[in-house]
């Protein structure tokens, strides 16, 4: 009976520390950006920055659920690619098809998430393997379906979701639609994790599945739901990415790793049980600020990639060390 307060208290303390760490990195990196390029302090450019970071933040929020449950979702990037290709081919440039197709895309995400969750929960396949397989499967399907050259086109009402910027908005000046979607999704993710019984169950499952089961938590449904949330967030991110830049056969490549890195920088523990949505949010923002900063520094591409790798390893390593010390 004492198990629940014991896991709940440190979880809150550490997620707060994780948040501080990610927030600190973000502030430092964004300050670096602003020093190099003072116009990034304009509301308009900050909004643009948020618009571009939105897909990664949304992916990080979804990934966080799976990480908290003690797993990984490596199929996110592939879902993003499939969403972009499928949207283009199913909509075929016809604006009246946009909303029905978006509904279809969410149904597809639901199916992918359910499949991931069922495989992990009932077949006992480790999530890293199950979702890796799913990633290959989806990438293969996307390629086979599109034949490597996506047909169709994305009409403006679809593109607007990731691209349109509302002008003359009071206080902010400009407001991209993607940022509105971002706020709604992060609020939902926060509510789901920190304000519902489901969120507490998820933390319990990730912290100690056996104890959670004995305490009466439905472990399998909780895990499955986490994979579903992750896949649905990937669909949302895919819609924003397709909207931002149009059809691309490699729209989602590598995004799953960035999402995992964002969660870890944001203080989530890789084996589950600890982490917060606000931490993941700032983790993703830090990561995106890092990309932007390296870009603004104008380093040669190869050097920039190497530096990015080093910083990622360092950030994740540091966060793992902090957890080890604190536990």
């Amino acid at each position, binding site marked *: 009976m004492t198990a629940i307060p014991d896991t709940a208290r440190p979880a809150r303390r550490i997620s707060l520390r994780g948040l501080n760490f990610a927030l600190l990195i973000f502030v430092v990196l964004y300050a670096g950006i602003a020093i190099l*390029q003072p*116009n*990034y302090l304009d509301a308009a*450019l900050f909004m*643009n920055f948020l618009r*571009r970071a939105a*897909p990664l933040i949304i992916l990080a929020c979804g990934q966080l659920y799976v990480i908290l449950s003690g797993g990984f979702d490596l199929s996110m990037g592939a879902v993003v690619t499939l969403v972009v290709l499928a949207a*283009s081919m199913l909509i075929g440039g016809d604006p009246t098809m946009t909303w029905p197709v978006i509904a279809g895309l969410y149904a597809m995400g639901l199916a992918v998430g359910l499949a991931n969750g069922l495989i992990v929960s009932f077949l006992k396949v480790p999530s890293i393997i199950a979702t890796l397989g799913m990633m290959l499967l989806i990438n293969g399907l996307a390629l086979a379906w599109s*034949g*490597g*050259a*996506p*047909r*169709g*086109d994305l009409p403006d009402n679809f593109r607007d979701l990731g*691209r349109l*910027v509302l002008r003359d908005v009071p206080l902010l000046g400009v407001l991209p639609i993607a940022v509105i979607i971002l706020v709604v999704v992060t609020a939902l993710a926060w509510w789901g994790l920190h304000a519902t019984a489901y969120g507490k169950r998820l933390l319990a499952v990730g912290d100690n599945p056996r104890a959670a089961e004995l305490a009466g938590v439905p472990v399998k449904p909780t895990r499955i739901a986490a994979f579903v949330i992750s896949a649905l967030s990937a669909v949302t991110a895919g819609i924003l*990415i397709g909207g*931002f*830049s*149009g*059809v*691309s*056969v*490699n*729209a989602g*490549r590598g995004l799953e*790793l960035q999402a995992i*890195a964002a969660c870890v920088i944001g203080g989530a523990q890789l084996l589950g049980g600890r982490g917060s949505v606000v931490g993941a949010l700032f983790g993703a923002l830090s990561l995106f600020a890092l*990309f*932007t900063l390296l*870009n*603004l520094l*104008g380093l040669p*591409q*190869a*050097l920039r*990639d*190497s530096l990015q*790798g*080093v910083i*990622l*390893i360092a950030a*994740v390593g540091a966060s793992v060390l902090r957890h080890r010390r604190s536990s």
Partner: protein
Amino acid sequence: MQFRSILAATLAVAFSTAAYAQEFNDPVEFKKQRDLLSTKAEGPDGKPWEQHLGGAMIDTAKFKKDGPHTICFSNAGVFNPWRVVGLNNLKGEAALQKDRIKELVILDAEGKDDKQISDIQSLLDGGKCDVLIVSPTTTAALTPAVEAACEKLPVIVFDRGVNTKCPVTYIHPVGGYGFGITSGEFIASKLPKGSNVLALRIVAGVDVLETRYSAAKSIFDEAGINVIGSEFTGSDRAKTKSVVEDYINRGQKIDAVWMDAGDTATAALEAFEDAGLPYPVISGEDQQDFLRKWQKENLVAIAPSYPTYQWRTPVIAALDILDGKSIPGPEWNLPQPAITQETLASYIDERMPALHYSLCGCQDLPGYPEQWGGK
């Protein structure tokens, strides 16, 4: 683990670029390709895939054989839209000549050297093939496999080359320098000295892409145009748009965008649109979405090409070889035209998908346009 492999791969790319940088700036090849661009093509008018730019002819009498023939094709893969259109062209040409072809066998190497080597081996072991067409994944790795094949049957190589002269002919358009010269000279001609150009490239270390950049860069240097950045986009639209936005946000004026391949050209242009800036001078490629945007927005643009119609030529060459006819060789240089303002309208086909390459030369092939994804 993943991060370590990312880092290792990045370093590998970094070092390989440094090691090969010299090879991609060959003044002799630059001059040769510049001359080829203005060489008058020989061969039937309006069928550039049957034409050739000068060069010698090869006697193939010793390969003469009664038909119908089995043509075997070892393809590097269909990992991008360019190769998808190309493969459709190759199949279309075979369908056009179906009376003379018993069977067209295609093995897809999925972009892997080892798979392509075993593909070629199994085609040879099968004993069905009368002629072998190879589009190699990489040059050095495939050379021994092609040499082994040459001992058994006539071989045609196209698209990318191999380090052996044993194939009957090597079919390719003018080349990377030619692509870079066409686009570089156009941009230089439209801008005053001291203007800024942003170069967007796909990946490092691929010869046909590196030579495109080296040719354009030397033209910009000569014309006094500043290359303010050279960025790799990995052919990803979102990354392209973000990179261009970052450059715009730096506050530096971008007068032109040069690209080593135009598949992300529309994404680059959207970055200017979203920032409320006028469009830059731009070089793209013969993809439909770029051509449509060019026409709609009245851009100052050019579309050099690496024409996909070159995929028709190997089938024609294969049948000619088995007929014992002379063909252009050991290199068969195809024309490599560019789409300009004057010819733009004739290359736009609203029935075709956004990523279709207009210089497919496929309009007269059976199954057009449905087979190419058109309506």
